[in-house]
């Protein structure tokens, strides 16, 4: 990995080094189930960014599906008094 320092061209901000970016990229890698177990030096940052986009899209889809499921459940079921009691206790 080159130790070339990149000059920041944004006014007012401190120098952004390659090391800082590599550190942030490897932290991101740790969050991605598909590639977190691979050696950091075997995964390019372009790879991590790609996987990050894929993962965020899949999380968005998951939340959409769950929203649909909750919509169906709320439309078709009556909340029992036991369920209502549990919900009240959670909101306390």
């Amino acid at each position: 990995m080159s130790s070339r320092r990149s000059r920041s061209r944004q006014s007012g901000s401190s120098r952004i080094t390659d090391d800082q970016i590599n550190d942030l990229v490897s932290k991101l890698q740790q969050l991605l189930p598909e590639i977190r177990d691979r050696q950091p030096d075997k995964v390019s940052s372009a790879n991590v960014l790609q996987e990050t986009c894929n993962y965020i899209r899949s999380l968005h889809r998951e939340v959409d599906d769950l929203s649909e499921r909750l919509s169906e459940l709320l439309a078709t079921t009556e909340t029992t008094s036991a369920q209502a009691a549990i919900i009240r206790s959670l909101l306390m």
Partner: protein
Amino acid sequence: MAVHRLSLNPSSYKTRFTQRFLRALMKINKNKNRSSTSSSFQEIRRGRRRIKIAADGSMASAVGSKRAWSRAMLYKLRTRTRHQAWVRKISTAAKRKRDVGNKPEEELSRTDDLRRLVPGGEAMDFCSLLEETAHYIKCLTTQAHVMQSIADFYST
């Protein structure tokens, strides 16, 4: 994971999200019962949109103004039509600023995708984008986790 065993620490994002989201769900449910009684396809689709907005709003307000992505999301939810024009304005200005960089074209295009996926991403510098993305991903997984628990709870 059962919802009443969600072990809610009062100051965690998870708790704050769960409480806000449950309250929003209850409000949505109450309004639904007052209107039509049919559970048509349209009703469910409208409900899904409302629930998705409630989930995102609850998550963003649980995080509050501490994070750029949550501020952007709250702003987007509150000003839905005006927001499109704002994003267009910000993204052209920010893109012009960023085009001075020396990153290869490939990496730039993936950054553009990421900027569109993370709320407020268009206006962030590269380092902030990476930090905000990490936090956003953690919150999205919490959101999905809690919603799953609630769905299981209502399915029993």
